[in-house]
């Protein structure tokens, strides 16, 4: 496959990046997330987690069912600081 296959569109992580991470021994999604940065952009993995998991399973020969997703972090969707701060208190 071409090296230009992009799996994580927020952070421009390609299939080749993920394969390289697996080759270096990072075989869990948490580790691959840290090594490649996938899933750390505005969508927080909502679009790419599945695709990256499949790529990791394929590259590592692991059964996809044994790959746990990475811990999802709040907020559920990007939220403006002004909203979180609430109305000005002056």
């Amino acid at each position, binding site marked *: 496959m071409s090296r230009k296959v992009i799996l994580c569109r927020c952070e421009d992580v390609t299939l080749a990046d993920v394969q390289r991470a697996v080759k*270096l*021994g990072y075989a869990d999604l948490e580790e691959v997330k*840290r*090594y490649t940065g996938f899933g750390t952009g*505005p969508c927080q993995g909502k679009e790419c987690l599945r695709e990256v998991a499949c790529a990791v399973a394929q590259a590592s020969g692991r059964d996809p069912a044994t790959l746990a997703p990475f811990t999802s972090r709040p907020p559920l969707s*990007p939220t403006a600081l002004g*909203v*979180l701060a609430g109305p000005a208190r002056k």
Partner: protein
Amino acid sequence: MTSSDRSPSPRADVVVIGAGVMGLAIAYNLAARGCKRIVVLDQHYLAWGASGRNGGGVRQQWSTEMNVRLMQESMEICAHFAEEMGINVWMRRGGYLFLARTDAAATRLARNVALQNRCDLPTRMISPAEAQALVPELETAPFVGACYNATDGIVFPWPFLWGYARAAQKRGVIIRTGTAVTAIDRRGDDFQIATAAGTLTAGRVICAAGAWSPRIARLCGGTLPDRPVRHEILSTEPLKPFLKPMVSVIETGLYVSQSLRGELVGGVSLPEEPNPDGEVRLGSRLAFLTTMARGLTEIMPRLAQVKVVRQWAGPYDVSPDGDPIVGELPGVPGFYVVCGFGGHGFMMAPVVARHYAAYLCGEAPHPFFEAWRADRFAAGGTPSPHREEMTIG
């Protein structure tokens, strides 16, 4: 990262417990000095602990001469790390700007700046207006004074771990992730270290388990007085570069910087929660998000539009006097600790590990071994002479 490292290694000279920045940096420094048969064990994966959850701030502005000088040396190591280890650590030296809301805090800053200048650090006291010249988005009204050192900065923490791990492995160090230590027994002069993947024998044990260190010490009958304190942090959507220095407010413990990826990364202190069992708690709380959002939009109102994409938590590993705890644990010869680094253990690890390895190889110990000795908390112990006051959080 170490599926290939599962080969049994029944006897090691040194077993390091914890593959955070401390454990990996000490293992690397020992190996670089020619030490052999070093095994590093971690219950999870690299960057799972505090070393993978921190803000990446590296600064030399401290209130004790020893810490200023240690961090000057550590900055040098950081500045050459990428080149020497062949890995990009995204270091950006945009300086550190400390802001004081009260005269008392400004006075303390001025005293520390004088000390830092004596150590040849170019820190200077500046007015809120001058601070605003550095950070145009800054609201000056809440502040009475500030100090700025242009040579401080930030790094991206994860590649430090990969860099140290890779360089250590190249020199023969075995790193086993996913391998929790469950028991430690004494056999004569040796330690028997039980893990889910088998038992290891070691001549010396280095406990580099950060906030989990008291538990590891208990496994071999020792006690450590540090406690885990949950500290939360967030990151925003990426923005065009606009924020040069790391900005920190003394009174609230708020800090924020812009990473080379463009995201704002920052945290703030919340009141310490009661935690009698010493549990390491890693959950995220809404209270942090709202406190941080109020703090940030108060000092930089324009950030109200900026979106938070992620929040997470990590443990500060806090000793009773706020200074670290290093050296051989009293009553457990051969068992060495390196913990209690609170919110600044990442930046200190490169220099602390360098001197720790020298000490383990029999060289004269760096003075921090005296200042940060474990028995200072024991009955009749001598307290640390110059307590560090420039800690955040």
